[in-house]
């Protein structure tokens, strides 16, 4: 069936099987490989994208469920004038190692900061508790999200 998804601001119309997962749609039809697959069971959050601004796990959602809606992936975070403050903060605070969880972590961070511009450490830890990182121990991810919040508040 034919669906139209607004992917990072651009309308993408494709024929898909009804069973096509959203993550596969993004990676193959959308040709955006920054969204990763880590567990297939909604547990790890590597596939997190924003659906109309809300974080969803695209490995357990069908592409047809996103028909007519807006999806933001890591490739859509960057701003016209450069990196999103979250991207800059993840690098500055060493919030990533292998980088596989990073897109999902940043998108959850973006949604959190949208609602709560100055989260406490516990706020951040709770917000990212649906996303697994195997490398960093989360300390610097938390630091990076809070630093980005502070940066966004002043700029």
């Amino acid at each position: 069936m034919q669906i139209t998804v607004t992917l990072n601001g651009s309308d993408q119309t494709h024929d898909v099987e009804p069973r096509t997962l959203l993550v596969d749609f993004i990676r193959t039809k959308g040709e955006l490989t920054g969204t990763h697959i880590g567990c297939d069971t909604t547990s790890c959050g590597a596939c997190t994208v924003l659906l109309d601004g809300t974080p969803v796990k695209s490995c357990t959602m069908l592409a047809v469920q996103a028909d007519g809606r807006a999806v933001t992936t890591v490739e859509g975070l960057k701003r016209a004038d450069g990196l999103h403050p979250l991207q800059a903060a993840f690098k500055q605070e060493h919030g990533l190692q292998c980088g596989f969880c990073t897109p999902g972590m940043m998108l959850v961070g973006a949604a959190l900061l949208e609602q709560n511009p100055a989260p406490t450490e516990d706020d951040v830890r709770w917000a990212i508790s649906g996303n697994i990182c195997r490398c960093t121990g989360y300390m610097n991810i938390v630091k990076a999200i809070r630093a980005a919040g502070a940066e966004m508040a002043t700029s």
Partner: protein
Amino acid sequence: MTLTQKPSTPPEIGGIGHSVRRHEDDRFIVGQGRYLDDHTLPGMLHMAILRSPLPHARINSIDTSAAAAVDGVVAVVTGELLAQYNLAWMPTLSGDTQAVLATDKVRFQGQEVAAVVATDPYIAEDALELIEVDYEPLPVITSPQQSLAADAVLIRDDKEGQTSNLVYEWEAGDGAATEVAFARADRVVSLETHYPRSHPSPLETCGCLADVNSATGQATIYMTSQAPHAIRTVFAMVAGLPEQNIRIISPDIGGGFGNKVPVYPGYVVATAASLVIGKPVKWVESRSENLISTGFARDYHMKGELALTNDGRILALRVQMLSDQGAFYADAQPTQFRAGLFHVVTGSYDFPAAHVQCRGAYTNKAPGGVAYRCSFRITEASYLIERLVQTAAYELGIDPADIRFKNFIQPDQFPYETPTGFVYDSGDYPTALRSALDAIGYEKLRAEQAAARDEGRFVGIGIAHFTEAVGAGPSKKYDILGLKMIDSAELRVHPTGKAILKLGVRSQGQGHETTFAQIVADELGIPVTDIKVVEGDTDNTPYGLGTYASRSTPVAGAAAAVVSRKIADKARKIAAHLLEAADDDIELQNGVFSVKGTPGRSVTIADVSLAAYTNLPDGMEYGLEDVHYYDPPNLTYPYGSYVVVVDVDPETGVWKARRVVALDDCGVRINPMIVEGQIHGGLTEGFAKSSMQWITFDEEGNCSGSNFMDYLIPTAWETPRFELLETCTPSPHHPIGAKGVGESATVGSPAAYVNAVIDAVAHLGVRNIDMPLLPDRVWSAIQSARATGG
């Protein structure tokens, strides 16, 4: 030993000691990392693997006709087909054999039985369901104790001469001397514990994209491999392909932790399929496949005994260990050591005698035995000795910190030869432990613990002081399948003074593109931003055994320093030529060559680089490049003192780590920021294993920890906060004094967490709870201790 180190280069050069922000991050933060599954090739097909639902069964027949008839299916591969190419079996990294696709029997749940190659991954999965396999179930063995019983069914009846399920027997140390010491001892303290089966589960699963050109025979294989060069050689041996026609490309890797060291059947099948079909074939595991079939870790059943004097002086250690190897012996470890480096189990203590006896047994579980973020079984060793010393403290009525101080190897005893044959390079253990105890406020906490007990609250303080043995290794002792465990670096300095460094190792998140550039920057004064690091392409990097066992900095990092010094030697001669001075009068500092005593006369590394291609002294060869293969003279021995405080709920067994103080001494830190990141990650892995993360099986051999809903991994919510400390005791034999750090905290911290929980309930008489310390296990231990009057 110093408390910290200072960089010797300015920030604009960014040499050793600077927390340079990582070069590799620029692509990862914008979604432009290129991991295995992100690669596509024209005409690419997709492969899916059918796995056995039974842990032990004879295969009577396999019917692939319905699967082959599905529209879009290009081929169905079975073991019978592979056998025609002599590929139904392959060697493991421990010299055993492993089935690629089962022909006779399946020996663990999840074993590879057949594969479908199709135009679309969804079609390949559909077709798997249509393959009919007639299995005849066989008795299942789920523990090594069961496996070695006299009446146990023989698992490896495929192996000629194999009459039992025993895989190996191996020992280290001096049995006779140890017995004498035990006979003389005032006290003998023992501990039996199981280090449970675990799985590294990097967030990216394993996979490959094999592209064999049928016209030329060139095989280009993109693969999630921590050891691309070693894999190339193994592939040449397995498949009989000429090694020059095999190119392994390890692209960006989404975490490895040992899981991506072995050769997996999927790699072999995809390559064979591409060879036969003539098109690229991609195979990417699901998470469940990753957890049930690829390299597991640990699964050591251990008994340790300490011989002691009444005042707590250790006289000897005796250890018996039985490992559960699964159906194929596939440990990734040096050939000489059948239980890895487990015999480093004497730890940080000075005593004259030890005897370590190890056996391994086949069971109907997945093969592996990979070093999950550790140097070949050193995690199990460190856990045992640190738990045992703590047990001895309770039994003798000595403070757990004091018994360690009493038995530590002292700073003036280095280099120190242990009773099992390691030669520790350097250390100051008392300072490390004292600093960690002071930071956490140890004496005050002990007072608080006593007061809390009076109120019915359980507070525990756990200590672990570990010594690692990493950086394998010296060629005299260390090889895998005969390949010496050297590593290499090739450095090319271009005419404009920019450089490219090529290495045989492969980063999986450790930040090699930054840290190894910092080593070159430090040696030559080329700014770190002007140095590109290339890894993971066997056609374009020098040979090496890969990244695992914390060996990259001790071995490849040393190679990078040495090759830089070779370049510096030549550059000095060119500078002398340009400055019309004698070679011996030239000094190099921060990228500037000057004439001793004449500060005004100087040229830069960029000037010298250009001259290397344009203006040389007579008789000198053009160019400024070199390669070095580094054969380490010894292992390196990082160490640390960890102290954990927990609160245990007496009524539920739930425990929480209130504070975690970790002091690490890994010698010289190339990039302190990255080092701290590695320690954070390792402390989290240690917390995971001590609290929740283990691979479970039921009595029928079903793997019940086969997904991230059942195989629990801590999130940010459960993970404790960490307080880090450091000392710096350089390795005396490493060119830059570094020791390696990637695995220290995974090795050292499990015992600290467990010791803390045990310490909270030790007054009841509890001496052991096996990991993971799930609330019901802790609760049961409390209940049974109370019931017996503790």
